[in-house]
């Protein structure tokens, strides 16, 4: 899976360059995440490309957050599409992971 990273201060902004994050590619996503984990313990997933996500995709995001919390860092999301947000609200991910409209707001929150 293509994850493009950009380091801003001690935060790594990761653009998730896939339209779909479902059971078919969450393993791949987790692998990609693990490979950038050593760069920083503070991550922002820029989600504007993602149009569809399922429970596996959400599980993967929770997994990432747990890993980062263990390293005393954290995960934040930004630019989440409406359809994806609908699911987040359904399984209340929005209460567990901070979601921001823009990258700047997410950066300020660290």
């Amino acid at each position, binding site marked *: 899976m293509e994850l493009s990273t950009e380091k801003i201060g001690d935060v790594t902004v990761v653009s998730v360059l896939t339209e779909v994050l*479902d059971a078919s590619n969450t393993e791949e996503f987790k692998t990609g995440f693990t490979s950038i984990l050593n760069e920083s313990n503070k991550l922002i997933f820029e989600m504007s490309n993602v149009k569809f996500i399922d*429970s596996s995709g*959400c599980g993967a995001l929770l997994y990432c957050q747990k890993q980062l919390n263990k390293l005393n860092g954290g995960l934040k999301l930004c630019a989440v599409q*409406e359809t994806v947000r609908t699911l987040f609200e359904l399984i209340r991910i929005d209460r567990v992971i901070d979601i921001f409209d823009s990258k700047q707001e997410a950066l300020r929150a660290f």
Partner: protein
Amino acid sequence: MKKAKPLVLIVDDNSVNIDLLVNTLKNDYRLGIAKNGSKALEYAGKHMPDLILLDIMMPGMNGYEVCTRLKAVTRTRDIPVIFITAMSEAGHKTRGFEVGALDYITKPFHAAEVKARVKTHLALKEAHDCDIYIASRIQKTLLLGSPPRDIPGIQISQLTVASQKVDGDFYDFFKHSNLCFDIVVGDVMGKGVPAALLGAAIKSHFLRVLNEQLRLSGRKKLPEPATIISAVHSGMIDQLEDLETFVTLCYARFDMSKYIFSFVDCGHMRTIHFHDDLNTCSLLRGVNMPLGFPEKEPFRQISVQFKPGDLFVFYSDGLTESKNVDGSLYGEKRLVDFIQANARIEPESLIKSIWNDVAAFSHSEIFDDDVTCVLIKIDKQALSTVFPDQDKLEIMSDLKELERVRSFIRKFCAKIDDSVLDDKRLNLIELAATEVIANIIKHAYNERSGKPIQINARMSADEVVFEFFDWGRGFDPESVPEPVFDGSNDGGFGLHIITHSVDEVIYSRGDQGKNCACLKIKLTGGN
């Protein structure tokens, strides 16, 4: 472009008189001369003069008769006629006005008087022509809507022939979705600019009412035709009463998902419905008064079923009330018979042949009233073969198939109206399907690949149902713990998503270890 000088026809049997008139008018006008009544009629019909100077006393056909005949023919009816005669008794003048003359000049005449009267009446005629031109422009630009071209399963063609008077016939189309559109056809009582303007006002009122009603329902539900008519009626009744006029119309909706035609008829011409399977026509008439009458009863709406191959014909009274030379009317029966005999030809050709038949009947292409006609033909090939009401998909147990399942669901739901199933709900259905398939692969088949999964989809008027079949391990939803939402565990999310994304979920296990997860989505009563 320089305008040609007006053409004046002089009708007189006396050469001296003709010479006098010619000398008086030749510098300002083009002139035509006829020496008797029948030559005058022939010339008028052929050259359409702008004004006729007509002698009364002529051998053979006299001036009164010439004038009467000119007025009886639509084409020459509006040419102004001035009588010129030696007779000056009041009785003769009265008779001249009775047969349709506009003015009178008595012999011996003064050149200046002749010039002045001709000039005045030509100016009046020009003003009148200008009115008609404006009215016909209003009609072409404001009164006649263009039909939707992109609705699958139907063809529309229309015909409008403006009369010299302009009637205020109007029609328009409102497309709601790929499977539903409305048509309104109407006729304002009265002629010319006032009728045309009122027609345009009513047409725009329909648009406004439609928008208001849609907004009130949060764009979830289309207002019924009867509701639309009621709102238009109460919005316009005061103006219509002030103007002392009324409007006959028919407002109809074609619902291509259910093949139902619902209409509210307010005193308009009966719509013809040709049944392709029975090869018969029925005439659809409502029970409502025209708009503009103080209606107390609620407007009543009537629904009829139609089938592939059926044809609907809407028209104005100008079509059925076209007259032939004897004064008899073309009539509804002739139109119905013609439709019955020709209903199966393409609408574009059919409407041309209707026109040819009416023109042949009346021996004219100029009519007293506007002639409008709209044909709506339902394709012979049922829409259900384009957008099936049932479909199925078979896949193997591989998570890579998830996208294919979602696109199958999107395609199957594509024909459902946006107001019933919006993108957000469709997205939730795709989500639920994704979760069901992922559960089957992960749990029922224990992540083994190459196992069969079958998806059946079906749709009715009030619900969409997706059934997912597998032949793996049975599944008891009770065995799955309620999900926790604190981020500590992602178990049970899938089931929670399925339950909350559709209206009903039923799990069952049938013969030979066939498991079924059935998702139902209601299409009525909002969500």
